[in-house]
């Protein structure tokens, strides 16, 4: 009997050590996501990566907000119309998706991946999420659409949430964005937290 119990425990432990999650978490209706990010920008020929970090807030179908804290405070809002960057309360960049439609694809990809909506990305990439250890991965290289894309391909690493995305450019430049402390909350809560972060940038 004892041997049976030990065997069962061993099997359970073995199984747990190689277990793959059934699927990453997906945001439900009325839910939003917030957390922290760290970005490393590797530019070909540069001495070191350019690092930045801060908080992010995803309000699905509305906006993705990037509140950078280091090296200095700045804010980026990507909504349906385009991208806006601000510094000290003043807008310094505005890019419309009508003018740069390829960016819309990147925006949609980021929103889908952060909110766990992988099906459209799998369809566009023509590949499925690949399980590996406790994570999934996906290499996202969209089919040619005639648009001049701002990246060659994306590498995703996913657990419950998107953990890392690597944006690889055709010239060899790459951005590695690592997400942490992700938390699902009602849209109102995330909106409130985003407002607070805007008022009190650390």
């Amino acid at each position: 009997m004892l041997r049976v119990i030990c065997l069962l425990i061993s099997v359970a432990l073995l199984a747990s050590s190689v277990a793959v999650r059934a699927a990453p978490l997906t945001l439900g209706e009325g839910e939003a996501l917030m957390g922290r990010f760290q970005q490393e920008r590797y530019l070909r020929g540069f001495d070191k990566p350019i690092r930045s970090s801060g908080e992010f807030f995803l309000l699905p179908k509305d906006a993705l907000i990037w509140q950078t804290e280091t090296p200095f405070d700045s804010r980026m809002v990507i909504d349906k119309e385009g991208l806006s960057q601000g510094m000290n309360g003043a807008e310094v960049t505005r890019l419309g998706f009508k003018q740069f439609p390829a960016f819309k694809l990147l925006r949609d990809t980021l929103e889908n991946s952060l909110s766990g909506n992988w099906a459209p990305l799998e369809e566009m990439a023509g590949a499925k999420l690949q399980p590996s250890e406790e994570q999934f991965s996906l290499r996202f290289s969209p089919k040619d659409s005639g648009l001049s894309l701002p990246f060659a391909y994306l590498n995703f690493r996913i657990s419950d949430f998107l953990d890392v995305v690597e944006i690889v450019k055709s010239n060899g430049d790459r951005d590695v964005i690592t997400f942490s402390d992700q938390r699902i909350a009602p849209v109102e809560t995330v909106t409130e937290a985003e407002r607070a972060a805007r008022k009190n940038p650390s």
Partner: protein
Amino acid sequence: MIRTGFVIYLLLVGAALAVIGWRFQDGLPLNTNIVAMLPQTEEAEWVARAEAAERTLGSDQLIALVGHADFEIARTAALDLNRALINASVLRNTDEGAPVATLTDLNKALFPHRAGLLTEGDRKLLAAGQGQVLMDRAMVQILSPLSLTDAEMIRRDPLLLLPNYLTSSLKNSSKLVNRANVLAVEEEGKWYVLVRGKLVGSAFDKGVQARTLDVFDRMSEKLDKDYGDVEILKTGAVFYGEHAYRRAEQEAGFIGIISLIGIIVLNFLIFRSFHPLALTLIAVASGIAGGLAVTLIFFGTLQLLAFVFGAGLIGISVDYAFHYFCERFNRQTTVPSARARAIRSGLTLGLVSSVLGFVTLALTPFPGLQQIAIFSASGLTLSYLTVLYLFPYLDRAKPFTHGEKYLAFSMRLHHFWWKSENRKWRLPIIGLLIAAGGLGATQIVVDDDVRRLQSLPPELQAEEQAIRLLAGIENQTHRFFVRGASTEEVLQAEEALSLDLEALRASGMIGNYRMISQFIPSRARQLENKALVEAELLPALPEHMAALGLSGDVPYGPTLGVLTLDQLTGETLPGTFSQLRVYTTPGIVVHAVSLSGVKDTAPLAALADKSPNVSLISQADSLSKTFGAYRVRALIMLAIAYGVVWVFLSLRYGIFGALKVMMPSAGAVILAPCLIALIGEPFTFFNAMSLLLIFAIGLDYALFNREAAGERQRRAMLANGLSTISTLLAFGMLALSETFAIHAFGITILVGITLAYLLAPLASDLDHPMTEPV
């Protein structure tokens, strides 16, 4: 007397034909530019040239958007349409595979000069010593995960001066993006691909118009069949031109045929011969030849509107012919010269009155009115000579033996005014006319706005608007023309103007403005910019580069010269800016500054007044202003013409007698605009111009009534009646036109000439019949 007149006529016609033949050697010297009708000044001349050049630039463009939910299908269908337009010789053949100019191309062209290219905002920051803001901005943009920058760009332009300059300069320039080597835009799940090209010929060439329409009709059907649910939106002067031409052709065909048939039937019915009709045509043709020759001698070219109105006024010569041929109802004499003599006094007085009126008009500084006056006065004089001195030679016919009933019928109107038994009807009718006129006077609405006068087809306007919205093309209603001796001078003038325009934009007076110097600054401005960059940014650049992890030399070294407009030729200069390059000739360069969302033109006009090299242009406003000025001027000169004619007629009829003779014509001229106002017709330039015709024809009717006595009264009344019917058939029928200008002309003539005819017998003086003038 007749022989001398005949010789003079032959000499004049010969001279006129010689002048016309000589001037027509290089083609028809017809000027269709309505701006040229304005008084000539030095400023107006360069503005008129610029407007003409701009119209040529714009009118040969054809734009279409081919829409489909699937981008690839929209693209293929657009390429099919483009190929069909080239194959049908509608669009010029350009290399279909040639790459569309992209942001990368612009980057390449502008990159060497990036230190001299700063946005207005960046200039202000640097001038205020806030270079750090620009460095922080560059860092924020470099850090963005959705960044336009790459290692190469950052290494060569770590301050991102050029990307920011390009983004700012091209903001709102167009929503169209380069995708798979075509320009396209996505809207509500549908992709629209641009087809754009230059026409092989003029947009107003009927052949080009027909081919264009044929290709669009054919391809619309084919693409729908091949790909399903393909939407084609199109715009261009060629479509508006084709529509206007088609409508004018239909109207002219319909109205012209009815008029012609009416006049032929009338002639044949009354004179029972085609001989009078043929001679009448000779009188009209002689008049037009004379008018054309004299105008060409004086002015060199003939303006289209002057030709149209002038030819209409020469149409009065038809009336002279009617009076001549009605004399054939006089069975007392068989001698043609006696017929001419019988009408000579009336004809001479009519001619002199009309010519005096036209000469008064010629004294205005408006070239258009001067041309109409000279054309009409000289043409009418030659027609007069034709009737009095050529007709007797060509007319060998015996008196008519028929026509008693027409003569008797014609006198009914005369009897109405002069027989005592009709007195009870006369006063109420006069009272009614005055009351209607008074009521109409309160209803008159003056309208010179060319936008309301233009009857552009709504379906074409809707397509144009849809293209504007999709492609993000602003509706630029107003513009400045800026002139200088060189491109550099013009660019500097634009930069000076932009300071005021920026203030107007900030105050909401204008929505936006666009000028070439926003993209290619003047040489002086670029050198200033470079100096600012060197002073405010370069000292802190090593620190910025270190933060980026970028080592090496400072990348903003000295560059070769500055960027010039000529370096960006053809496709490289974005369309929004290339369209602003109006013309460049040695010594004169003109650029346009486009304005949108204009709330009030007064501050813009004030800006234009500050410099003789800046002129505010609104095609619609400028035409409206021209029409308004002409309307007022025509009315003033009409009043003066009546004064001059009064003095002239007083010599023969006395002061009060002359007033009485002028009364029917003046009554018709005053009442016609009032009566048409009752049916909601506005009073425009075209109505005012038609009053000139009513003035001249109305005077003729009255003069023939006054000059004719006894038996001749009947023939004069018949001739007046025939002349009225033919005028109404030729001009009054134009009231049926859907083209506003033609309709306005027609409706005024219809009412005015009818009134002039009805009132003309009032000029008679049965107690004091006239004899031949001394």
